[in-house]
Each structure stands twice: as structure tokens, then as C-alpha cells.
């Protein structure tokens, strides 16, 4: 039954995010192409300004798309679980676990896809920009290329040691965030339902509550780690990346633990405390 839930969920949701990704990639492309236009060295300030505006538009599209997709999935979760649609959702012959897993998997997967789309959009933007600059001749483009050509040498520097591990930890962090971000959303909305008369306000309150708890646990866990780092480690290594990697791994483990806890809390609430209006 979980498979069927996933199938229908997927079928119902794919259009909106795909449309948004399209918009994002398009703005990325346009913003990148501005570099190939002969506007940067113009005497009139209006031309480089409009170039900057186009690049800013891409920046806002990046934020807008990730926020938009988050809101889209949050609203969908709320509607299908707790409004009139819930009368169908909760009378399907499936368990509360299957209902919730369906949402967690779908939303988590779309979080990852969104991250991938953002990376792709950045590549499109950077790629078109680079191609444009390569053929260009201006002062500005020479500077940019010089900076890029120095990057590989940078990696050989002693303070860059552990950079690969750091990158891996960032990817791991993204994976963890895809899941924990989803649970944060689902958890806030589900907990918010317990405030029967003010369900949406309740959700917002729950969101800040969960954030505060996660922060507190993070601080408590990180503290001893920090002391170890500063006492024993700090002076022996040349590169700061080991420490960053360590922080990231610990923080993501804490968020994951909170997310798993939230999952079971939500499952319990849906099974036992559901009260549709």
C-alpha cells in the first residue's frame, strides 16, 4: 500500500516543483548570459546596473524556489492530513505509519531534488558566465579567470588539508537536512493541530519550539566537543577543515536524532489524537 500511496502522491505533486525548477534554470541562464553582453565596460551606468539586476533576480529566484517548494509541500501536507481531504486520507485502508512515511519520503526526496536543481542552476549560471568570459576580453573577465586558475594550487596548501572530508561532510549534511527539514515541517504542522482552535498559529509556535529544542540539544552536545577541540586538537593541526567537518557531523547527528524523535511523535499523534473538524 505504501507503494500505491507514493505513486499517487508523486503523480499529484510533480508539476509545481518542476515548473519552479524550469523558472530557476531559465533565470540562471539569463543571468549567466549577461556576462557575454557588452554592457560591463559601458560608460553609461544603466547598462552594468541592469546586468547586476538580472544576476540579483537569479539570486532571488534561488531563494524563492526553495521557499516556494517548502510552502507548497507544507500546505499540501496540512490539507491532505488535517482538512476535509483528511476524511479520505484517513479512511484509506492503510496504517498511520504508511501515511506518514509516504509524506516523509516524498517530501524528503523533493528536498533533495530541489538541492540538486539549485546546484544545477548554479552550474548553468556559472557555466554560461565562464563561456561568455572566455571569449570576452575586458579587464573584469581577466581578473575572474586569474582567480579561477589559482584554485588548484590552493588545494595543495597545508591549511587545505582535509578539504575532501569537509566536502563529504557537507554532502552528508545536505542529505541529513533533506530528511530533518522535512520532519521539522511535518512535526510543526502535526503538533500545531493539537491547538484545536488555532491550528495554524499552533504550527508556527511548534516550529519555533522545535527549533529551540534542537538548538539547545546542539549546544549541550557541542560544548564538550568544543572543549576537546580547543584543548587537544587545535594546536596540532594546520587545517581548520577537520574541525568544521567534526562540527558538521555532530550537528547533523543531533538534528537527525531530533527528526527521528519527531517522526515517532507524529505517528503517535496521527494514530491517537487525530481530530478532524
Amino acid at each position, binding site marked *: 500500500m505504501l507503494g500505491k500511496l507514493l505513486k499517487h502522491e508523486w503523480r*499529484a505533486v510533480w508539476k509545481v516543483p518542476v515548473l519552479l525548477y524550469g523558472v530557476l534554470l531559465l533565470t540562471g541562464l539569463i543571468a549567466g548570459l549577461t556576462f557575454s553582453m557588452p554592457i560591463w565596460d559601458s560608460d553609461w551606468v544603466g547598462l552594468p546596473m541592469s546586468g547586476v539586476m538580472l544576476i540579483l533576480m537569479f539570486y532571488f529566484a534561488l531563494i524563492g524556489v526553495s521557499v516556494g517548494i517548502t510552502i507548497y509541500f507544507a500546505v499540501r501536507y496540512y490539507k491532505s492530513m488535517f482538512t476535509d481531504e483528511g476524511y479520505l486520507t484517513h479512511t484509506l485502508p492503510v496504517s498511520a505509519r504508511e501515511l506518514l512515511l509516504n509524506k516523509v519520503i516524498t517530501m524528503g526526496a523533493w528536498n533533495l531534488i530541489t538541492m540538486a536543481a539549485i546546484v544545477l542552476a548554479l552550474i548553468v549560471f556559472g557555466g554560461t558566465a565562464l563561456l561568455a568570459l572566455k571569449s570576452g576580453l575586458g579587464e573584469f573577465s581577466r581578473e575572474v579567470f586569474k582567480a579561477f586558475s589559482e584554485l588548484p594550487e590552493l588545494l595543495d596548501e597545508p591549511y587545505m588539508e582535509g578539504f575532501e572530508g569537509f566536502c563529504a561532510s557537507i554532502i552528508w549534511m545536505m542529505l541529513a537536512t533533506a530528511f530533518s527539514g522535512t520532519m521539522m515541517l511535518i512535526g510543526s504542522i502535526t503538533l500545531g493541530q493539537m491547538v484545536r482552535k488555532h491550528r495554524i498559529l499552533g504550527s508556527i509556535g511548534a516550529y519555533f519550539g522545535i527549533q529551540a529544542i534542537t538548538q539547545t540539544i546542539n549546544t549541550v552536545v557541542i560544548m564538550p566537543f568544543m572543549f576537546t577541540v580547543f584543548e587537544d586538537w587545535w594546536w596540532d593541526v594546520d587545517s581548520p577543515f577537520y574541525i568544521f567537518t567534526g562540527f558538521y557531523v555532530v550537528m547533523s547527528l543531533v538534528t537527525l536524532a531530533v527528526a527521528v524523535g519527531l517522526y515517532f511523535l507524529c505517528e503517535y499523534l496521527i494514530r491517537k489524537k487525530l481530530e478532524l473538524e
Partner: protein
Amino acid sequence: MNELVEVNNLTKVYEKKKLALDHMNLTIPRGRIIGLLGPNGSGKTTLIKLINGLLEPTEGEILVNGRRPGPESKACVSYLPERTYFQGSMKVSELISYFTDFYQDFSPERARQMLANLKISEDARLKTLSKGTKEKVQLIMVMSRQAQLYILDEPIAGVDPAARDYILKTIISNYSEMSTVLISTHLITDIAQVLDEVVFIRDGRVVLQDTVEHIRETRGKSVDAFFREVFAC
């Protein structure tokens, strides 16, 4: 075989200490059309939600085919709530495939036939349909299942006589033999003649459960008249 539905000592207290069901006991047999009758706020919808597993009892229990509400009971109970529960962006055809996938007892052919009779296009998006049409589509979906128990919550409240006739006819011609139809209503006049049995509830308790025929024989009046007498305000 177990009784279709057994309600034992069932109590539901909402927040703010509102007592909706008060130690209710009730048995719902198979193969009947039963009216669940009572004034507004008497606990009809709460009972129905509990049978459907949309609420948890505060005390006591409900057994459907001898088991508590869960995926197994939901597979054999077909429920028409008061609310329209569709996702507006769905097409009628998508709704049919949704029901076909989730409910083994759903007959898409029958649903298509009934939709065609009403000239409802399968390409129509649900949000474009009028309120009355949406309600009919929902009834068609619910009655296209070969369920053991159909639970219809106020199916005829606020509809015109033509729609009421359509609804009653759809129910009568589609419910499967040996299954039970439980119809809740506060408007008994319109449906008295389709009922085998009635359950009167008030203040979260069963006041009376009897066959329509027996009521007529022993009380010498129609169920309708008797209902008004019992619930005289």
C-alpha cells in the same frame, strides 16, 4: 461469524470536557438498512467517526468484524462524510484510479456508468464541479464499492427533492446484498420508508433500537410520528 459492528461501553469526551458519547452500547447487524436518528449534537457524527477510526475512544471500544478500527476495517467500510473530501486539482478519471488502487472492492465500471448517466465528464477537474455535483460524485464513489458496511452521514441534508430521490435510488440500487447501510439523519420523514431498523440516539446514548415494522405494530404509528414524539422539543 462476528457481529458487523459492536459498540461496548463507548465514551468520547472532547477537549473542554464535552461529553459526546456516554457509555454507549449498540450492535449493528448485517444485511439491514439502518437509520441512525437523533437531533443535531446527539452524537451521531462522533459515533460514525469512531467506527471509521477517525477518532480514538476515551473509554470503551468499537469492534468491526470483531476487530478494532484499522486498515482491515477501513477496507470493508465505505464512508460518506458530510464534507467533500476531494483534492480539487484531481480529475474525475484520476479519482477513479485512486479508488481502484486503494479499495479492492471498488468497481470502476459501475462508477463510470453512474457518472455517464449524470453526464459528468471524466476529464472534468473536481474543483470545477458545482457543490451538488461534487456531492453526487462522492456518493457514486462510495456506492461503487462492494463494502460490508456503508456509513452515510447526513446524505440528504440540505438537498432538493430531486437530488434526494437520486441519492436514495443510488443507495438502494447499489448497496450489496448481505451488507448493511447505516444512514444518519435528523430528517427522518424523507427516508423512513427505506429503513429496516432505526436507532434513536440522544445525548450520546441509545434511546431505542427497533425494526420499523415492530414500531408500527406496537406503537400504532409511523416511525416518523414516533420520532417526533420521542424527541419532542
